[in-house]
């Protein structure tokens, strides 16, 4: 199969690339990367537990997508969500506190890695049932439309979610009702150990979207600039009332599915080839070529990210645990809205 091969290698600079914007994208990707690398350490130190699904290698998608949407647009994510959460604007401190199960965590320690939620940034979780968040995104968009809000909901899911009936029922409804949803399919070619080619009889995902009359594009998910540009176009169309769009972002996870996964099912050469396409050095060299970045600049970005994560870890470590007496809080609401 040719699909899982990494494709073309170098980023193309759009003619109008603003230096500061390019650097911002780089900063976000580096922050996500560093955050997750620290999570691996904390996992080894048994401070983070449960499932930990890393986004390493896929940072260009969250970064480019969030750069293309507005602050009050909504996002719905999966269990592989640190990147989405950080790029959406949630603080790494409260995310880290969540990873450690602390009361200052975004979900007060009840969610952990897979269930980050943040009302302030309209981040609607963190869903650990494959495809379980997709109908929620349709509903969020329906509510926006009914209330006359000019807002878009971005729904992230993996290519594996396309196997689930929930995806089909949801995209049909979104299309039928012409709702402002971006179906953001992160095709990293594997769902756990299952290659897309072994899971879907037809691996051209655009055909599935087309069968619901939803326009579908395929984008290089390792190219943050391409991700941003395509997403911006889609979001403009969606906001313009043209109904949902499906974008397949082609990407690859550099690490195993989760910390439990021995990763026996992927060819090391395939992994190595994709690692050559790491979106972070790719953007860094482009910015360097364009004269927007030098070694010092990159070092500063990395150091700032490290420092931020240091602060986040300190915050998380020093955050208290939820008192045991509060275990049964939030099963039902405490206030009537």
């Amino acid at each position, binding site marked *: 199969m040719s699909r899982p091969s990494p494709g073309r290698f170098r980023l193309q600079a759009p003619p109008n690339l603003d230096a500061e914007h390019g650097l911002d994208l780089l900063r976000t990707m580096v922050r996500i990367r560093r955050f997750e690398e620290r999570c691996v350490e904390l996992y080894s130190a048994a401070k983070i537990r449960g499932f930990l699904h890393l986004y390493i290698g896929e940072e260009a998608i969250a970064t480019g997508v969030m750069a293309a949407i507005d602050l009050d647009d*909504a996002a*719905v994510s999966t269990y592989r969500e640190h990147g989405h959460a950080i790029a959406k604007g949630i603080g790494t401190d409260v995310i880290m506190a969540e990873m450690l199960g602390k009361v200052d*965590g*975004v*979900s*007060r*320690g*009840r*969610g952990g890695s897979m*269930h980050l*939620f*943040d*009302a302030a940034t309209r981040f*609607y*979780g*963190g*869903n650990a*049932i494959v495809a*379980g968040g*997709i*109908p*929620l*995104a*349709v*509903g*969020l*968009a*329906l*509510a*926006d439309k*009914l*209330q006359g809000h000019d807002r878009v909901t971005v729904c992230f899911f993996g290519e594996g979610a396309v196997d689930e*009936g*929930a995806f089909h*029922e*949801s995209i*049909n*409804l979104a299309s*039928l*009702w012409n709702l402002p949803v971006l179906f953001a399919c992160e095709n990293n070619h594997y769902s756990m150990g299952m290659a897309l080619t072994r899971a879907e009889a037809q691996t051209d995902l655009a055909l599935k979207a087309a069968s619901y009359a939803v326009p579908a594009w395929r984008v290089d998910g390792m190219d943050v600039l391409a991700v941003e540009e395509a997403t911006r176009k889609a979001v403009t169309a969606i906001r313009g009332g043209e109904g949902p769009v499906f974008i397949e972002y082609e990407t690859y996870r550099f690490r195993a599915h989760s910390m439990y996964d021995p990763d026996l099912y992927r060819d090391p050469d395939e992994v190595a080839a994709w690692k050559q396409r790491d979106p972070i050095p790719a953007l860094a060299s482009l910015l360097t070529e364009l004269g927007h970045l030098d070694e010092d600049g990159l070092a500063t970005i990395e150091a700032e990210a490290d420092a931020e994560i240091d602060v986040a870890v300190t915050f998380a470590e020093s955050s208290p645990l939820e008192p045991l007496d509060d275990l049964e*809080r*939030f*099963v*039902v*609401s*405490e*206030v*009537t*809205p």
Partner: protein
Amino acid sequence: MTATDATTRPTPETVRMTLREAHKQSLRAALDHDERVFLMGEDIGAYGGCFAVTMGLLDEYGPERIRDTPLSEIAIVGTAIGAAMNGMRPIAEIMTCNFSLLAMDQIINNAATLLHMSGGQFNVPVVIRTTAGAGRQLAAQHSHSFEPYFAHVPGIRVVSLATHADARGVLAPALEDPDPVILFEYPRLMTMEAEVPVDPDIVDLSSAAIRRPGSDVTVVTYGATQHTVLDAAEALAADGIDAEVIDLRSLRPLDDATVFASVARTHRAVVVEEAWRTVGLGAEVAARIAEEAFYDLDAPVARIGCAEVPLPYAKHLEDAAIPQVESIVAEVRRVMHRG
């Protein structure tokens, strides 16, 4: 409009209506009262509702508020949840609880869970209407009573609606509830008529209702079955046994205080339900009575449920499977003569 809707004209104070009409009035009141309310579900619009409850609402409120959906139970419930998280007050209909099995993931893993999992940030004010029960020869796949499944789950409120007052009174409090509410309606009662006040009573749907006071034995039940139980109570009365009949009404949380108080007076209890007996609501009620009112009891709590079979089509078999006046009377008698 169905034939039964065209009933006699109201006296100034009361009006005669079917339970179907009572349900519809409640939906109409909700739609009138709060513009965030909308209905979504299969065939609620052009068809008029599987049980004609929503007949006419599409014309009255238009397709933005009465939303016919494709046959997509996962998407119906999940979309309603999402809309509820984002400012609306959706009332989603799953035609019958038989099909709710397709939406269990959304109901349990999302609706019931999101508030807690988000540390209190996202409440889900969704109302899900569905129906339950046998008695119309619809066979196994259309006759389930899944109230016990929902009563098991923290984070949702479950209410069963088997009287006019409850049907008319339910939606106001249900829509005020910031959390998910699942409403059970009963198809075989839709044509049941009653004379009711023009203005709906205010009912406390978090409480159980004593449908018939009595002193000899407490019969706890819920849903459509309560009407069978009330008939049984009359039969027992003729026989000198004065049964108190309690409709649990709120299936989660359970108003066990009302049950315990009754048992403290009667010292005997029978639980009657149409769901399968094993791991049903009857088990929960019996266990709670045994736990909290053990020393009040003069006899073990008895349970009657559906026979442990998928509901058969043939009428004599279906009747034999679900609680009937005779089987209830017999069981109450057994409990009375024991201990």
